[in-house]
């Protein structure tokens, strides 16, 4: 005997088919663009690529400013993009007459990169803006398109601000840099190629710190017994000698 389908199942079946049917119908009627993922991606890429450009790129600058480009390409700033200092210039490139880019003639632009900061890599040229020719715009002495020191720096602090600051609070504060380092004149012009000397032997420090040395207030040690297998700066940082590592 075939079992009769209960009445409630038939009713539920109708309701469920209506629900499913209307969902299916809605999905069918919806414009395919709404459901089409590749189309969404495509339109996103198109929208993304259509965004306006603000930075023109340094090649664009070279087209008109060949003189600056030639000057810059052999100097220390050769790898610098023009817009690093001059700001976004795509609008200027499109309309060179009416829209002019930013020109940093004041002092505040350069310290962004060249102010001394202990986190900056050593060797990167840094100055202490409060003692380095205060208030003078950088461009009076340095041509930003070919930045070389205009004259030999008088003080080591011009470049080695960090060391000088450390030394200033150490017990070597009154010892001049040149007491320990012989600085060839050419170091001031080509600092990376011609380098100053550094002490090489225990006897060098001994000139002040060995027993019987003529300097009165320097602490004395016996060079023959005081950790004789090491050189002094393995334990004492000369610019901060109080600190023992």
């Amino acid at each position, binding site marked *: 005997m075939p079992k009769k389908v*209960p*009445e*409630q199942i038939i009713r*539920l079946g109708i*309701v469920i088919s209506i629900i499913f049917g209307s969902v299916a119908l809605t999905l069918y009627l*919806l414009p395919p663009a709404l459901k089409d993922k590749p189309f969404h991606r495509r339109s996103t890429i198109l929208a993304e690529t259509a965004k306006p450009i603000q930075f023109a790129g340094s090649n664009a600058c070279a087209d008109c400013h060949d003189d600056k480009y030639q000057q810059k390409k052999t100097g220390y700033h050769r790898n610098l993009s023009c817009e690093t200092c001059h700001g976004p210039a795509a609008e200027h490139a499109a309309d060179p007459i009416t829209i002019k880019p930013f020109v940093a003639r004041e002092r505040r632009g350069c310290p962004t990169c060249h102010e001394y900061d202990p986190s900056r890599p050593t060797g990167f040229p840094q100055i202490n803006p409060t003692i380095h020719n205060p208030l003078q715009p950088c461009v009076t002495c340095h041509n930003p398109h070919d930045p070389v020191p205009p004259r030999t720096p008088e003080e080591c602090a011009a470049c080695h601000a960090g060391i000088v600051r450390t030394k200033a609070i150490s017990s070597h504060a009154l010892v001049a840099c040149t007491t320990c380092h012989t600085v060839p004149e050419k170091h001031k012009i080509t600092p990376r190629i011609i380098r100053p000397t550094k002490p090489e032997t225990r006897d060098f420090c001994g000139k002040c710190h060995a027993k019987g040395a003529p300097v009165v207030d320097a602490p004395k040690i016996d060079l023959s017994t005081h950790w004789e297998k090491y050189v002094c700066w393995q334990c004492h940082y000369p610019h901060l000698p109080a600190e023992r590592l």
Partner: protein
Amino acid sequence: MNQELTEKLTDLLSQVTGYIYPNEIEIHWSILIVVYPYVTGVVAGAFILASLVKVFNVEEVRPTYRLSLLTALSFLLVAPLPLNLHLGHPERAYEIFLTPNLRSAMAMFGFVYAWYLMGVLLLEIWFEYRGDLVVWSREKQFPMKWIYRLLSLFSNDISKRALEFDHKAAKAITIIGIPSAFLLHGYVGFIFGSVKANPWWSSVLMPIVFLMSAIVSGIALIIFLYMVITPIRGETIDMRCLDRLASFLFYAVIVDFSLEALDFVHRLYESEESVKILATLINQKLFMSLLIIQVLLGMIIPSAMLVAGRAWRLSEELRKLLYFTACILIQVGIFSTRWNVVIGGQLFSKSLRGLTTYKMEVIGSEGLMMALALLVLPFVILTILVKLIPPWKEASRQTS
């Protein structure tokens, strides 16, 4: 930019401790996302309680069977609201059905939710109530008559065979419903547990912990409702039922507590790179909400109350008082659990070096008032449902 937001974020910036990534100052999942797992938890818990009657034939708790189903439905109807309201573009929510990303845990929400609502809960309630609906539609006058007729889908058959069929169907649906309830809430846990970038969330235990705490909150809420509604109706509370519910609640709390303790001890013992920042998080930001509210007030004290009621054979009145207090404490505790997961997980930086702060809005679409409204709404729905299809008058039994 919006001045208000700037001020808010500047204010938050001053309260950051340590280092956080610069985009991490703002808490992105607000109190509404705390409400969401809390509400779905109640749904799953209440349903599982209902299934004890249908599938496991725990006759003592039958008086709460229909109430559990209606509670589950009221909370389930509210569950998507907090999610929708917190979206940056709620008007685009339908996209989750049109272009679901099948690899996304969140994309499954719509499907899991629709299945649970339509495939399980509504069906079970319909089969459970169909006989009554037919009877009511015959007894009542216009317009209620037509509402009942519509609700019963114009069905008319209340023969013994038909009612027996309803009963069997409801039972079959419950059997499917238990794994579905597990799925619904385990899935909510998975949304958090699967975020590998966040060491506070990323845990394989997360779905299970969510599930157990869901059962705890569901049972506790049903006890609460049963104890409130029965005296209002002028009936007496069935102590056998209440004791049985309380013991189920106690077991659930114990399992939940053990799992959470396991998770905690495991993290502490493994002591991975995140352990320091998580310890700071607990000590500085979550001390009150985690250790005091969630663990002490929400677990230890109420389980002691539940045990005390039975162990010392206290009087009925005292037992009722203990159960009632325990249930309220547990609700607060479980809400705090959700808070600690959702908000706690965003208070520390993924750089593991610092903490930020959550400043809750009071008014506004993601504020406290909205959260409270969303927590009250299920009770409003429940009141309407209880008025419309009373869970205690089993009219069909009297007539058939």
